[in-house]
């Protein structure tokens, strides 16, 4: 018959290994946490500056914001930056939309997406094609839609769903700002 120690020994060793790994992970997390948070904050600020340049942004708390709006910031000197999340073709797309005081879109920036590489992913890329696509949204007002749906936005080739999702996001950001101001 097996002794009790034969059962306890493997469990004890596993416990020790797991404890050591957990300790090391804790240390690495302590070292990197501040940096990771700073980078996330900086990425966000850069995205906001790219869509609507201002010296500072003040976050607004809304009671009745639509479900796709995450955060709204009032920019110093007029206008808003709205962060919206829409459903794309491969997952959710999060974008920053800049809105001027006269309710026109001042620019968009895709901060998080998992669209198809080479097709929908162009919407978030720093390439000529990506810039061209995003610059179409500048100056848009009211309801924004792709040409297929009767709007003026030329959808990315092979990525109508992505383009539609972004148009929806811009429309809902514009609609929200209309109620604000």
């Amino acid at each position, binding site marked *: 018959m097996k002794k009790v120690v034969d059962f306890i*020994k*493997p*469990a004890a*060793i*596993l416990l020790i*290994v*797991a404890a050591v*790994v957990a300790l*090391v*992970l804790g240390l*690495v*997390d302590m*070292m*990197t946490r501040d*940096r*990771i948070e700073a*980078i996330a904050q900086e*990425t966000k600020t850069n995205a906001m500056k790219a869509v609507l340049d201002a010296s500072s942004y003040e976050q607004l708390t809304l009671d009745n914001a639509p479900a796709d709006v995450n955060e709204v910031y009032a920019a110093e000197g007029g206008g808003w930056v709205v962060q919206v999340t829409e459903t794309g073709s491969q997952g959710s797309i999060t974008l920053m939309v800049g809105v001027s005081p006269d309710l026109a879109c001042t620019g968009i920036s895709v901060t998080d997406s*998992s669209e*198809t*590489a*080479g*097709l929908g992913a162009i919407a978030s890329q*720093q*390439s*000529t*094609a990506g810039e061209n696509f995003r610059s179409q949204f500048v100056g848009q007002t009211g309801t924004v839609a792709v040409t297929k749906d009767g709007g003026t936005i030329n959808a990315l080739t*092979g990525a109508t769903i992505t383009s539609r999702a972004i148009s929806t996001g811009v429309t809902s950001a514009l609609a929200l700002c209309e109620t604000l101001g």
Partner: protein
Amino acid sequence: MNAKKQLTEGLITNNPVLVQQIGLCATMAISTSLFNGIGMGLSVLIILTCCNVVISAIRKIIPGQVRLAIFVVVIAGFVTIVDLLLKAFIPALSSALGVFIPLIVVNCIIIGRAEAFSSKESVFLSFRDGVFQGLGYTCVLVLMCLIRELLGSGTIGGGILNGASSFVTLDGTGAGIRIIPEGFGAGALVLPFGGFLTLGCLMAVMQFALRKSNEKKARKEKEVKE
């Protein structure tokens, strides 16, 4: 076991992707630009080497019944460390590779080498095995990236070369050197099924070359005997 033999095994005769055929999921998913390929390859190389060394160092005290659990804990630990470090120091790579860095935990290259090699061999040999198998993986990734990026998007060195601020960049903004005019690439190759096609072709070429060289060796031995 000498270093040269281990190197040939890692790169060619026992290449993790093309011969052992493990770790294919990430290989197909991320090999769309050179930046991703090199980043992923080096991440796997580092994690594999660290895991091999640690597992080999504690191989005598690992009880057989719980060895897989211990392997997974060690691997998950190193993967999380690399994931955090990438997030903190190379955020562009971290966002380009996305979920595939955490997924290295379940990458069978690492647990495969732990089970087949480092749990039996000395620390030094395991270290070399990690480096050489990692190099083999990186080479295949880079090759896949070069083929898919050139034929699919028409560029070379996407994410690394030809950046906005300098020629060689590490922030993933490089546009790559354009070889084929925009719009003329076979975009399908960048999609997942293009990954299957490329990998299939590479494996076929590899198997063909290996068989040829084996036949040649067998013939030579026969001649020597006669």
